[in-house]
């Protein structure tokens, strides 16, 4: 078991940014920086109807925890890491992922946040199928 207090989760439910931020609130923090990923309505000029996300849940949660530990090692000012990713069918405008980092001061949170989303897209076993008006396709930045 990881000794860290990171909050990571793969969920089928809608994600509330307020709820995630509230869970990081402690008297010692002065900043919570968030990234919110949202389903975009167009890709390469084509209209997207919805996205179908799937995950290798156990491994995804383990790799999210690993990202939390990497962040803590690189940016020791970060107090808590929360990464929640939704799976299942998501329509345009819905939230697919929320990443929130807390610290006493804001300085390190921005670089750490960028690292978190880049790393998520690189190693976490989650896939998305894009259903467009002209067909469907599994999408990745790595093909």
């Amino acid at each position: 078991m990881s000794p860290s207090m990171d909050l990571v989760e793969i969920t089928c439910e809608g994600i509330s940014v307020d709820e995630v931020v509230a869970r990081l609130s402690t008297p010692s923090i002065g900043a919570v920086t968030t990234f919110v990923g949202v389903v975009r309505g167009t890709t390469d000029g084509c209209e997207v109807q919805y996205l179908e996300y799937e995950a290798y849940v156990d491994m995804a949660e383990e790799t999210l925890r690993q990202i939390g530990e990497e962040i803590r090692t690189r940016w020791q000012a970060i107090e808590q890491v929360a990464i929640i990713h939704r799976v299942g069918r998501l329509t345009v405008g819905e939230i697919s992922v929320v990443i929130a980092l807390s610290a006493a001061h804001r300085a390190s949170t921005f670089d750490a946040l960028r690292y978190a989303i880049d790393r998520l897209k690189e190693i976490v076993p989650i896939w998305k199928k894009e259903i467009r008006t002209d067909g469907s396709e599994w999408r990745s930045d790595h093909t």
Partner: protein
Amino acid sequence: MNSDAPPIRLRVKFFAAPREALGKNEIEIQLPPGSTVEDMMKHLTETYPVLRTYTRFVSVAVNRTYVSMDTELHEGDEVACLPPVGGG
């Protein structure tokens, strides 16, 4: 490899495009003891030719950790074929 030793049994999980092509989330396979991930991929593409399109791109995880192709497999391992990820 010792041909007298019993085969090892593994569960192999599939996701996204290769899962759809195969029509299954998970299969159980048997391999000679001492087999590596590379041996397993060869076995899979011979048994399920439909997977050939994808094997060039997949990463493999054993017990939920990314591994290299020369990793040796063991009885009861949870193996997963992971196409390029697309979270976020």
